[in-house]
């Protein structure tokens, strides 16, 4: 009788463990707010000295040596000229006399914290860069390339005007597709892929602040707050999706296209994780 009782308890333990692993990872059970708090708790445990608000500064929130170098770099921010160029581009009317300001809420000023967002009519996640190009096309202009150059400069200027605004990504409850997009982003973040069998989480959660050759991967919390970034390795400004593509390739995968649905969902998930933090883009990174 005792054996049967013990066996029943064992099976119960296994089943509850399986239920626990499924909880929060299906459309029926996913809870973005619980995910956000769990991610913060992960880093509180991992780097007890770091303030949550400081995660907008990436690796510089948790590595003193890198922070020292970065502080010096920020004395003459390498993205400064790009912000100026972005402002000029933003304010230059299209051939039809319209401008970017006409396409965005509040004339495009101080709105970065609301991107990406779920567009119910189109049934997809919209990013800021996507809407910059849509604005151009609507006004008879050619779309810009996604990764660098003018699109990154315009995005940088728009981020600059939004600095210190609190990120506020919403997942509308009246459209299950929004939650599904969030879940897809979460799944992408945790899925191992490529010849190196690495997930985003492997490097940016378990591996954050642990050397990969000479590099220290940044914590995932706050990842999207400071884009676009002037990356020393690039020697220029680049968008978040340019970085996604590079990271994806670093796992020895064939990367997806910038602004593909999968990357936009990933941005949706990651930016939701940064809710409550502030916009501090554009940033400077190694």
């Amino acid at each position, binding site marked *: 009788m*005792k*054996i049967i009782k*013990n*066996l029943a*308890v*064992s*099976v119960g*333990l*296994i089943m509850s463990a399986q239920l*626990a*692993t*499924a909880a*929060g*990872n299906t459309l029926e059970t996913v809870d973005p707010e619980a995910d956000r708090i769990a991610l913060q708790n*992960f880093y509180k445990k991992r780097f007890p000295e770091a303030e949550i608000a400081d995660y907008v500064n990436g690796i510089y929130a948790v590595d003193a040596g890198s922070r020292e170098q970065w502080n010096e770099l920020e004395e003459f921010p390498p993205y400064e000229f790009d912000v100026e160029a972005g402002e000029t581009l933003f304010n230059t009317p299209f051939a039809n006399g319209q401008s970017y300001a006409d396409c965005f809420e509040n004339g495009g000023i101080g709105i970065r914290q609301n991107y990406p967002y779920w567009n119910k009519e189109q049934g997809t996640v919209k990013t800021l860069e996507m809407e910059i190009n849509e604005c151009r096309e609507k006004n008879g202009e050619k779309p810009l390339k996604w990764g660098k150059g003018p699109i990154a400069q315009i995005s940088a200027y728009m981020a600059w005007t939004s600095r210190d605004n609190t990120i506020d990504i919403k997942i509308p409850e009246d459209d299950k597709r929004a939650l599904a997009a969030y879940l897809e982003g979460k*799944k992408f973040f*945790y*899925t*191992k*892929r*490529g*010849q190196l*069998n690495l*997930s985003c*989480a*492997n490097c940016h*959660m*378990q591996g954050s602040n642990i050397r990969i050759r000479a590099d220290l991967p940044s914590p995932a919390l706050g990842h999207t707050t400071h884009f676009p970034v002037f990356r020393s390795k690039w020697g220029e400004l680049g968008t978040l999706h340019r970085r996604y593509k590079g990271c994806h*390739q670093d796992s*020895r*995968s*064939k990367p*997806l296209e910038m602004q593909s649905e*999968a990357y936009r969902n990933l941005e949706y998930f990651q930016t939701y994780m940064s809710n409550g933090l502030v916009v501090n883009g554009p940033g400077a990174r190694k």
Partner: protein
Amino acid sequence: MRKLLALTAVVLLPTTALAESFDQAFNMNRGMYGKDHTFTWNGKQYSTNHQEDVEASVEATQANATALVEKAKAKNAEAGAVGFEWKLTKGLIKEAEAALAEGEYQKAMNLAAQAKYHARIGIQQHEYAESNWHLSIPQ
């Protein structure tokens, strides 16, 4: 408590340890000895060759090389369709095609076999991820 733990282990054993032990044995032997090695697992003998090693070991003719290159291309397209194409695979296929065009059939088959292996494992990775991705989430 000890009995409870022991029973839990017994119940878990068939679904975890035993189910994976062949893969572990295969991978360890493949890693240590490379291909064309024989190892024993659960009293039976197995080869460390991947199915692609076998496919590349047939006679090096134009027809066989062409067939393997086509298989590699098809498998890689399958991996790409689920978003799990690996970075170097397309390059390997191109090299295999170049070797084929040069009449270097064995080289073409070796390269195509490697590409097909990449694609096959990429698909496996996708299948595993579909039901296990959440295991990467720290608890």
